């Protein structure tokens, strides 16, 4: 089992993964019931599971999740809608790249949480400021990733396009885009994950709904099990989204796996 750089049978892999999770929960449970840590700081795993159920039955948590998911997707799509064409242009026309890259690199290093007060002054405490926070957090990273993806398209593909008679626009549409699409979709998946990080920040600072708001308001009553359940809920939504993306990727880009 401990062969150096060997592979393991699928069942062994799964068993080890489950054992790891089980060990984590066992350690957690033992710590919680042992009395070393006060229950209001560390409830048992089961208490968190019960709190998870209560969130849905008593607090209408499903609505908050839907609101948060809606915010994430709206901001994410707004990012994608601008980042994909701009990234393509940046890599195809050096002038566009040279014009916007220094600016984007500068913005990219500004910590998004630090922008929150400014964005609230600009957009108020309504939906717009939350969308703005998420957009700021993803757009500037995504546009550079998209530009890199398109830059990595082999020169031969592009030159083939031109010698088949395509013009620049046709090369972008028929060759660069489909060639870069698999890695673009991968990067979209990753930036959707960032959206969730910034969502919680946005909802903690200024919101009256959403997962982040729920977690933050429960904190005031030291409802630790509910707080933990809320965090777990985010993890589950994230995991499901990620898996859905991977599934679509495998189906749509099946030609990438060689035999």
């Amino acid at each position, binding site marked *: 089992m401990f062969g150096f750089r060997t592979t393991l049978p699928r069942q062994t892999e799964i068993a080890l993964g489950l054992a790891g999770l089980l060990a984590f929960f066992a350690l957690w449970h033992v710590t919680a019931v042992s009395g070393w840590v006060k229950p209001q700081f560390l409830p048992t795993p089961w208490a968190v599971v019960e709190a998870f159920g209560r969130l849905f039955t008593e607090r209408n948590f499903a609505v908050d999740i839907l609101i948060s998911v809606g915010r994430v997707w709206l901001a994410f799509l707004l990012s994608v809608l601008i980042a994909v064409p701009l990234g393509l242009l940046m890599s195809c026309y050096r002038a566009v790249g040279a014009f916007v890259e220094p600016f984007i690199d500068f913005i990219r290093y500004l910590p998004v949480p630090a922008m929150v007060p400014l964005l609230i002054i600009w957009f108020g405490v309504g939906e717009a400021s939350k969308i703005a926070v998420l957009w700021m957090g993803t757009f500037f990273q995504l546009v550079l990733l998209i530009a890199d993806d398109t830059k990595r398209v082999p020169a*031969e593909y592009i*030159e083939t396009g031109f*010698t088949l008679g395509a013009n620049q626009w046709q090369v972008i549409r028929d060759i660069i885009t*489909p060639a870069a699409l698999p890695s673009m979709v991968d990067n979209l998946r990753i930036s959707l994950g960032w959206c969730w990080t910034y969502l919680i920040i946005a909802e903690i600072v200024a919101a009256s709904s959403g997962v982040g708001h729920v977690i933050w308001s429960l904190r005031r009553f030291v409802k630790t099990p509910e707080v933990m359940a809320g965090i777990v809920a985010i993890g589950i939504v994230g995991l499901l989204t990620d898996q859905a993306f991977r599934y679509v990727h495998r189906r749509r880009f099946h*030609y*990438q796996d060689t035999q």
Partner: protein
Amino acid sequence: MTLTLETVSKTFRGDGRDVEAVTPISLTIETGQIVTFLGPSGCGKTTLMRMVGGLETPTAGTITLDGARLTGPDRRRGMVFQSYSAFPWLTVAGNIRMGLKYRSGLTEAEQSEIVSDLIETVGLKGFDDSYTNRISGGMRQRVAIARTLAADPDVLLMDEPFGALDALTREHLQTKLMEINRRAGKTTIFVTHDVEEAILIAHRLVIFSARPARILEDIDVGAKLGEAREQSLRDAPDFLDLRRHVQTVIRAEFARAQTDAEHV
């Protein structure tokens, strides 16, 4: 379609120092000829061919096709690259269809017919719907050739297209190429550094010097070996004589380039 190069040269401008890749070269290639460019690696023969394809701009000189001056790349000059350039997101048929995409005036029925004809020509029947990651390197290269033929270029430019293939596949594709050329009669420039390949498939063989490229010899292979070619020609006395001669020229040039390099 007569392809004419008139004192075409290329100098790459680098950081602080210029590299002369091609000295002024003049060359006229007649319709339907296969001309092979042979020379040491990195000598500038590929650069010369890329200039014909419009993928590099000559520093000086002009390239004309039937008198019309050529600049950027277009459908008149089709290119086949050394690396496998078949598009992985398309099937074999889809790739070949890309060659028709920018041609106008073809009905759907005509397009389908051209695609299936070309699939047959390059010997890929039954692989129409295979994605190119699932087929061998030799088959992928045949897809690239068929795709270029689909665009119906006046001039076919091939940059060591069989360079990455094993010897057997290579011979097979050489035979195929000669067959295709007989049928389609495309003016072809074929860059290689394999001496036998350069002689076998050529009507005419141009040997280049080490960088910067200059023509060392321009051999009318057709006159020496005749038009009919098969792999078995490799053992014919005329072929062996020619091969020996070409190798002598190449070796002498290599030795000269080495001494030059040592004296710099």
